């Protein structure tokens, strides 16, 4: 594992602002550029040195275009438009003069303020960590533009107002941003610009503010890594070990090299890479490689065996992560104990865009084009592989066709493999710069590991004769995502990986006696955070257990939650809103049922009521989900709704039928025919209601996912009495 140190980065912020010649970022929309917004339609040529950068986040162009630099990757979650909204509001820009592009990789300027010295996107943190930073960037630029306009008019700043991108003097005279940008950038930077009060917001919270990236995405615009083409570029496909941890023993590339278009085959630490002049020959030839693998260090267990081991461990005491009161005594004295075991499979993220990266290496510097989600780690892994300084790794972050966590990789293996190939070719080619695109197939992706890990939960909950919850014993078995990664220090404490227990630990439910235990297992299949991370299994267990308890106690599931959440007002807020909007308690037609779940993740509170209907064979379909969310200040309400819709679809889709299984260490699934994604016919209608809030904004990319599957499972129970404790639901006929 590469040790991550945040060495001094190249670009420093000039306290008096700075003028820069805009190269890539100002060059209009072209293949490999990430600029989105006004330029997508106009494709205005760059105007060179006259573009004015006010601070790391705001550029004003002579034609009045405001370019916002997004330090975060946008992989569909709407962050780029969200950050642009924050700047534009404080700047009082008109929305149609705003563009957004991705910031360069530079942790000194663009680190995630929740993570310390790393630039990266994840944990639904983009808007929360940037909320004040981007507003301040907009407000600073505005103050400087106002001052410049005042000086131009020979007046004082209080005589200048700004509205929709126009500076207006009290006499009625006007100036555009571009007219005074150069002067403004030379002025002192105000330390504490006055920020708006919420009642002054014009764009934050505005309904129907279109995302800047939607229009280009309706014409198939070439904005993704897949679309990058460099002069003389070779496309690489990599054959990786079919068992995790295996290595190449020997290989024969004769057949692969015979494919028209294949120019080279190289061995790298990750496997065997085929290089071709275009994509198809590379993908085709990769499958023609004859490789002997050495599996001596590989994981060779199948998932059946791993599951049996996990179930056995679930019967033995684990490491305690939470102890309140005496759960054993409480359970011993309980009138009724409900004991349930839950199993969760490995899950692949399977973002729509198969993984891809473009790299160029000239011996001293490397340039990368990819949907980089952890730019700092990508820089360090590339630098370590190539033997250059991290600051000599330039990253062009591009729009990503989904991620769900898959592009945020603690070992940066996607770019790392590209760097391995670049290094091998550099040596072979005598130092010639060779652009390379590494293209993953869907099979590479499905079989490639970095899954949501398998977990087993075993829970015993006790109620007294009056149906009151008296004790809870909760045991979790599964591998740690973070141990052995650069994130271990921050998120693994005393052997407890927070991501294994989040959502159980510190449950808001008023449980008088609670014990939480964890068994951290060793598995050779790499695990990774997957949309909502630990909450993907913990919320399921907590919320379906609550319904089991409600049934045992003869209580209504919503009523029981209200009782146990009486000191958690924000949980109650979303629970009550979702229940009300869904008509909880009102009659449903025969063959239909409702289920509820409420869960906080990434500091956002979400409750959902799912409605399911059954056909004559007993199969069910999810018809409707009513969702209530409290994410603090709603920056882009329509995008919040979109993220709830998508999060619900992601949660339900995988719960319905997705699992990655292994036989003797090899992944059984390979593509969308046997890891079949949710389709439109599976998708419920979704109604999202956003609680009005003045609290600081919290994330929305992930929190919609955790309650979706348990709400559906609770609806199924309500209708049939059947408990779905083994995921995915497609296993239900197997018992």
């Amino acid at each position: 594992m590469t040790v991550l140190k945040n060495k001094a980065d190249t670009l420093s912020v000039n306290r008096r602002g700075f003028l820069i010649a805009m190269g890539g970022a100002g060059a209009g929309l072209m293949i490999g550029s990430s600029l989105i917004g006004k330029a997508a339609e106009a494709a205005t040529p760059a105007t060179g040195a006259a573009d004015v950068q006010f601070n790391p986040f705001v550029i004003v162009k002579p034609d009045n275009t405001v370019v916002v630099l997004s330090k975060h990757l946008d992989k569909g979650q709407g962050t780029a438009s969200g950050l642009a909204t924050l700047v534009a509001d404080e700047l009082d820009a008109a929305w149609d003069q705003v563009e957004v592009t991705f910031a360069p990789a530079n942790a000194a300027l663009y680190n995630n303020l929740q993570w310390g010295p790393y630039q990266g996107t994840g944990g639904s943190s983009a808007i929360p960590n940037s909320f004040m930073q981007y507003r301040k960037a907009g407000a600073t630029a505005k103050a400087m533009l106002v001052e410049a306009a005042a000086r131009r008019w020979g007046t004082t700043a209080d005589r200048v107002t700004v509205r929709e991108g126009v500076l207006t003097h009290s006499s009625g005279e006007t100036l555009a941003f571009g007219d005074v940008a150069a002067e403004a950038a030379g002025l002192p930077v105000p330390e504490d610009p006055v920020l708006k009060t919420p009642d002054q917001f014009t764009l934050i919270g505005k309904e129907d503010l279109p995302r800047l990236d939607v229009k280009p995405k309706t014409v198939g615009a070439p904005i993704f890594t897949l679309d990058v083409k460099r002069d003389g570029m070779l496309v690489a496909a990599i054959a990786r070990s079919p068992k995790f941890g295996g290595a190449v023993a020997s290989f024969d590339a004769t057949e692969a090299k015979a494919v028209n278009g294949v120019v080279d085959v190289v061995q790298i630490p990750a496997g065997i890479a085929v290089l071709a002049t275009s994509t198809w020959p590379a993908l085709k030839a990769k499958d023609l490689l004859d490789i002997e693998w050495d599996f001596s260090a590989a994981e060779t267990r199948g998932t059946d065996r791993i599951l049996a081991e996990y179930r056995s461990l679930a019967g033995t005491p684990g490491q305690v992560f939470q102890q309140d009161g005496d759960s054993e005594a409480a359970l011993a004295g309980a009138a009724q104990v409900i004991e349930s075991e839950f199993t969760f499979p490995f899950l692949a993220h399977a973002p729509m865009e198969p993984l891809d990266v473009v790299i160029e290496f000239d011996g001293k510097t490397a340039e990368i084009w990819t949907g980089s989600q952890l730019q700092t780690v990508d820089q360090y892994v590339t630098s370590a592989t190539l033997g250059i300084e991290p600051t000599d790794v330039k990253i062009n972050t591009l729009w990503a066709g989904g991620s769900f966590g898959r592009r945020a990789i603690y070992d940066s293996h996607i770019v790392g493999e590209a760097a391995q190939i670049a290094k091998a070719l550099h040596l072979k080619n005598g130092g010639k710069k060779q652009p390379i695109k590494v293209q993953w197939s869907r099979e590479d992706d499905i079989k490639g590991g970095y899954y949501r890990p398998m977990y087993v939960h075993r829970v015993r909950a006790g109620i007294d004769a009056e149906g009151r919850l008296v004790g809870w014993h909760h045991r979790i078995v599964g591998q740690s995502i973070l141990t052995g990664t650069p994130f271990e220090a921050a998120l693994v404490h005393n052997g407890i990986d927070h991501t294994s227990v989040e959502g159980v630990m510190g449950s808001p439910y008023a449980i008088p006696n609670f014990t939480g235990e964890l068994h951290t297992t060793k598995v050779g299949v790499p695990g990774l955070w997957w949309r909502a991370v630990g909450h993907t299994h913990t919320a399921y267990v907590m919320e379906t257990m609550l319904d089991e308890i409600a049934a045992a106690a003869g209580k209504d599931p919503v009523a029981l939650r209200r009782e146990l959440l009486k000191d958690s007002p924000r949980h109650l807020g979303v629970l009550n809103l979702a229940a009300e909007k869904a008509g909880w308690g009102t009659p449903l037609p025969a063959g239909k049922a409702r289920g509820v779940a409420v869960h906080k993740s990434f500091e956002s509170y979400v409750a959902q009521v799912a409605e399911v209907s059954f056909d004559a064979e007993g199969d069910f379909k999810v018809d409707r989900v009513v969702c209530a969310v409290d994410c603090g200040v709603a920056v882009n309400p329509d995008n919040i709704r979109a993220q709830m819709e998508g999060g619900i679809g992601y949660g339900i889709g995988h719960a319905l039928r997705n699992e990655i299984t292994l036989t003797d260490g090899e992944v059984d699934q390979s593509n969308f025919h046997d890891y079949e994604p949710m389709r439109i016919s599976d998708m419920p209608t979704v109604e999202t209601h956003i609680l009005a809030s003045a609290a600081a904004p919290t994330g929305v990319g992930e929190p919609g996912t955790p309650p979706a599957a348990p709400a559906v499972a609770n609806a199924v129970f309500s209708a049939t009495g059947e408990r779905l404790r083994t995921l995915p639901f497609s296993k239900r006929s197997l018992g």
Partner: protein
Amino acid sequence: MAFQLKVNGDTRAVDVDGDTPLLWALRDELDLTDTKFGCGIAMCGACTVYVDGFPTRSCVTMVDSVGDSEITTIDGLEGKAAEAVQKAWNDLQVPQCGYCQSGQIMAAASLLAETPKPSDADIDAAMDGNVCRCATYHRIRAAIHRAADMMEG
């Protein structure tokens, strides 16, 4: 070997092996990168183009099977249904990551050209082959209804 492909009204030459999927000929040889790669086995619809007007998975359509057929990519998509679909997609802010959307739009425009007032069941049947991992399906359904209304109006 050289093939003449009729794409978006033009005849274009590509020099590839006959077993090359049309998807890669369009993308890598003709720089028509608006058609995307999702699965390579016709299970996701990201690569949807029209061949003689029919929505077709270009990832499993080999170049040597295309012959004189007219190929239409999203770059060449036109007509009342296509315009309505693209406008509705924008009005309802359908895309999230956007990667599958050119395929979704090709499928939706084809549906509306055949069935101007589709029911939810018609939409589900016509669009079930187009995967969206962001699960924008709820808005896709609504946007197709919106486009149908626009075409009527």
